[in-house]
């Protein structure tokens, strides 16, 4: 056996589409998506809090839907669109998205370890359900764990973002109807 990759001899070449960039990765079949994102692609924004699907720190979007990247093998994500926390801020200016700004305005993070997971959870959820009420948001947010904030400010941040997006859309619609 002449394994120089450190991955064992059972390796495969896969292609992953992450944040709009296509990556070719040589990996072992048992390697999880979160490990490939973090350690092979060096996209370390996505975190690992439990490796067994409960804490949600590893949440990323796969074809737009929140998924726990510790519960998925990287090979299973081939052909899908993966989105991580690194995609949220403007790539050119680094300017934070409205969701990220809401988190800072409402103090929705302390240590920040759970934060990428909550951001991606909210990002996916609000895209699907822009009309979500604060109660809906609280229910969805309960999918992830945070040990620092007591959750209230996370819920408030997401709710504020959703509300602002709705009023912006309403204004946009109004402007359109004026034209």
């Amino acid at each position: 056996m002449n394994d120089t990759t450190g991955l064992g001899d059972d390796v495969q070449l896969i292609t992953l589409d992450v944040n709009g960039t296509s990556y070719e990765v040589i990996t072992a079949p048992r390697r999880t998506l979160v490990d490939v994102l973090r350690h092979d692609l060096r996209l370390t924004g996505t975190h690992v809090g439990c490796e067994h699907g409960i804490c949600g720190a590893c949440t990323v979007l796969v074809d737009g839907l929140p998924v726990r990247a510790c519960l998925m093998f990287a090979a299973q994500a081939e052909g899908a669109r993966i989105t991580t926390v690194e995609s949220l801020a403007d790539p050119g200016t680094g300017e934070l998205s409205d969701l990220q700004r809401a988190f800072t305005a409402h103090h929705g993070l302390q240590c920040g370890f759970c934060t990428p997971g909550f951001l991606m959870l909210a990002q996916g959820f609000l895209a699907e359900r822009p009309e979500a009420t604060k109660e809906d948001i609280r229910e969805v947010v309960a999918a992830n764990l945070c040990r620092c904030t007591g959750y209230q400010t996370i819920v408030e941040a997401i709710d504020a973002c959703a509300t602002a997006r709705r009023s912006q859309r309403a204004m946009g619609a109004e402007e359109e109807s004026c034209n």
Partner: protein
Amino acid sequence: MTSAKDDRLVGRSVARREDPRLLSGRGRFVDDIELPGMLHAQFVRSTVAHGTITEIDLTRVRQVPGVVAAFTAADLELGDITAQLGRPLSEFVPTAMPVLARDRVRYVGEPVAVVVARDPYLAEDGLEAAKVTYAPLPPITCEEQALAPDAPRVHAEAAGNTLVDVGLFATEGIDEIFDQAPCVVHVDVRTGRQNALPLETRGAVAQWDAREEQLVLHACTQTPHQVRTVASRCLRLDERAVRVIVPDMGGGFGLKCVVGREEIAAAAAALRLGRPVKWIEDRKDALSASFLAREQHYTARAAFDADGRILGLDADVVCDMGAYSCYPFTAGIEPLMASAEMPGVYKVPAYRVRGRAITTNKAPTAPYRGVSRPQYVMAMERLMERAARELRLDPVEIRRRNVITDFPYTGVNNITYDPGSYLESLDLCERALREAGWYDRQAAATAEGRHIGIGYSCFSERTGYGSAAFAQRKMEVVPGFDLAEVRMDTSGAVTATTGTISHGQSHETTMAQIVADTLHLDIAKVKLHQGDTDRITYGWGTFASRSIAVGGSAVRLAAAKLGDKLRAIAAAEWGIPPEDTELDRGRVRRRDDPDVALSYERLADTAYLTSHLLPKDIDPGLTATAVFDVHNDGTFSNATHGVVVELHEGTGQVEILAYFCVEDCGVAVNPQVVEGQCRGGIAQGISGALFEQITYDAQGEPSATSFMDYKVPTAQEIPEVVIHHLETPCAFTATGAKGAGEGGTIGAPAAVLNAVNDALRPTGVELDNTPITPETVHRALTPRTPEQTP
């Protein structure tokens, strides 16, 4: 022109400066560190709770593809970690904690050997090939077993499995007081074993830097300088040959303020192999084999006069510290804290206490947010409630009659409490609940047969522990002071250092607020360094809510000194006394002619680039250092928590309907951050009251190895919290701040327990233990037929 006062940042919710990187995935946590040639460590851990190791066979481990090395204690020749108290053997028994178990294992999960491989997956493969044989010994898994007369010993040197046994106070004549008191009440309070559970598990990356001749240890720790000390001693290196760097940290809550064994073992492996080694604890180990906390038992009684005033308090405190004494605090931390501070916010004229730390075959414990205070507050508050019932007094009224109102107050425990708002917070909290209509709603619900209860807790928490307060505990290693440096470069930008370290508390923002205000400088010009033993001369790290009270004070004093130097340079240039100058928005200006001013950049140019222009008595450069310590008994933040719960008959579920917190932490440097600390702490306190517990079976096997069997509350269980602030500025700190990190965790369990008991009032059942499980509540709510009654 606005006055300088209007620009002040202290007291304002300045946006967090750490947020942009944490929100965009640019934070750097320990597992984000990747070094060329890095290897990965995992630990072979004991599968038995108590036993001698008869054989460790790592031959097959070393054959696993990808495994580079596997070491036992004998291979690494490491020193032990031994925490010491300067107390006689009758009061304290030191116990050595080997970095890897040598001949004996004392809990399930104890590290026995370390496997190093090219990849974490392969390291785990290696673990599976390890063969360790044990000759099991009978495990000690509870207080009763530990203290049984002929119990086997966890440590041969600790008779009666007792590591600490201290009677700190015993007022003369206390027995007569109890004999003659019109009312004596008892409680028996037990709290479950918990995990502080930062979301980021522990971890380390160790590397030998040949050029610097230095071991660089990136570690996830709240106390970098103490980790450096232990690493240098265990590895037999000079302290300067060890550099501990703490990157971003995903919570700590006290768990990360003690020195762990795995960090040291990973460092030893890196030295042996000449390659960087990373260790990241997985959640299973974090839950079961890391440091745990909280398991305590209070047998207490209190004597009251007929009007409900306390006459005496008599308590026996037993803390189950698990298998080892943590470094540097020792197993004494919990019983000594409880013994010294139990009277809390109440005027207690007579006091007797015995505090014990016992050792068992369970994972060792570390401090956890609140340290004993959640428990002794619970015991005190249960005593209050029980006396109120006995004497038919309103629960708020009995507290009102007993809280300390005249400050400074020196208690029967020899502690002098600085001014606080004990009565005011209680009154305000009750009023807030009344005005929100909760008492009316409770009455209406009770009439409908629903079970709604209202509960309170009042407490103060010593926060600014200086070295004087820690020295009273007789720790051999005495924490307390903090050291800060503030330096300005020629661009007028400032770097401040602190010996404290943020794991979510926003130091980069709050410390910068303090510096910016003190130097009248734009906050954008201020940067904070923390968590690097080569950049920071010394520090005690972050625990006991000390960062802003002690660390922030040092930062403030250093900044003020730097300001003085800037003024001195300007004054020399103008040929006027420094007193005739003042700092004003990035400049020094003349008091007699405010239009005449020199910018900091210009003064820094003089200090560094044309230092020949400085007068003889002014040294070149612009740096200032300051040390701050609290020289008295510390400072006391205080709060009242009020909570409304509903108990559900069918399920025994406890639902929190409302939560109010009135807190006073002195000057709040950043109110939003303070509120964040309160909310987070309350969530953890509620969790301790209702959900979290790690139990052990008779074999010493822990019940929780994943989040499937350890209930961490989510957004569904944690209510919105209404917070009111009171502000009694602290006279002993340079910032006027007390501390705000732990209060939430301290107040919540007692308040929740009291609220549940209030709801249970019609049933006659009273609960004293946490966590309060649905089974207990269900049992209490289910009327029993006479045959069922025991």
